[in-house]
């Protein structure tokens, strides 16, 4: 069964009538909307590769039904450039060369952008790193990721 799904994806209104009721947000983004920057890692909520922002909250798109985010704002890595916080995180990752194969990068960038958005006071780098534990890097290239996080943790979003 399919039903109407309306949302804002990366600032663009989306209105589709063909989204099956049991479809995951991850699959809608990748296969219906062609936004393949969102990666499928474990599909069980363990790796964080599929993290997107839903109304500014980091969300595992593999464990979220598309219809559950009806009417909400979805931000994927393709929209990071249009979001001041995500853009800043992306720049920090580039600056720190915090990318190896790149598969985990979109999830890391959006999870970290979500953490910065929800904080009203400045966040310590250690707090940010603790709250990023749900994102795994399969290359184990954490040193540069930690460097990127530390470069962001010192200032306010």
């Amino acid at each position, binding site marked *: *069964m399919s*039903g109407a799904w309306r949302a804002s994806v990366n600032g663009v209104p989306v209105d589709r009538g063909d989204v*099956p*009721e*049991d479809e*995951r947000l991850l699959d809608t983004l990748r296969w219906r909307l062609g936004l393949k920057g969102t990666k499928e890692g474990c*599909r*069980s*909520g*363990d790796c*964080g590769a599929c*993290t997107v922002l*839903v109304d500014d*909250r*980091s*969300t*595992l798109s593999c*464990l*979220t*039904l598309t*219809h*559950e985010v009806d009417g909400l704002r979805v931000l994927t890595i393709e929209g990071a450039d249009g979001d001041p916080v995500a853009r800043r995180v992306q720049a920090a990752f580039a600056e720190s060369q915090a990318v190896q194969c790149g598969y985990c990068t979109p999830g890391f960038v959006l*999870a970290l952008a*979500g*953490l910065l958005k*929800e904080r009203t006071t400045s966040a310590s780098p250690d707090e940010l790193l603790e*709250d*990023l*534990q*749900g*994102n795994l890097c399969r290359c184990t290239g954490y040193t540069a990721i930690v460097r990127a996080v530390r470069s962001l943790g010192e200032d306010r979003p």
Partner: protein
Amino acid sequence: MAFALVTPGSVDEAVRLLGDPAAPPTAVLAGGTDLLFELSGTTAAPPRVLSLRKMPWRSIRWDGSSLEIGSTAPLRDLERAPRVRSDLPGLWSAVRAVGSVPLRHRATVGGNLARASPASDLIPILLTLDAVADLVGPHGRRRLPVGALVRGPRTTALGAGELIERVTIPEARPSAYLWQRVRPANDVSQVGVACAWSPTARHWRLAVGGAGPAPVRLPEVESVLDGPTPLAASTIAAAAAAASRLAPFSTDKRATEGYRRQVVEVLVRRALGSVAPPGGP
């Protein structure tokens, strides 16, 4: 998996849809982090999933000294709610133990209770805080202590068509929750130990989760603790030994019975010590 998704717009409609004797088997979806994980790996999905996303159960508020947690409030909201970290430190630690931040943006207290995982990090601490659940169903509303709601592994006292609306913690309590895992982050606990002291009733509560078929309170251990505070080091040691003797332990893919027995003793000692530092011999 293939199922129809129904999203009732009111509590009455949800109860009616669920309680209808002619309705197809229906799974209830709150945050979905446990349910959708389970449904990923099966072709035997129920034909219908009922979403609670439009239920008015997302608020978290203090009413004097008691904390009312809407059953579908995201765990991340609970973790960040005022006074939770300071007044209910064990609850704060237990919530933080669940998955990761993105997972806690969707996972809920109601879902955690209704799914009643043997390894739930929340059930042990809710038991020690004497939390109660408000339920709504085809026969009206009722209130059950969490200990009566969670009956066993993946088993609750929820009747047909019955839903959890709210979980209430009656008072702030010095408390702690400690766990042991293979990986510290984003893993399932092999053992979890919760303890809390009631400043009004002046009694201890201690519960163990993850170790056996279901989270349990250990009244025999609590009676070892009740008495003068702060606890004497010898009392803490006796309680830890009693917990490792009395808790139900089992062996599964995460740990052996013997390992769990040893870890419980250590965690009980540390948890009690962190709530009430030893005060004498």
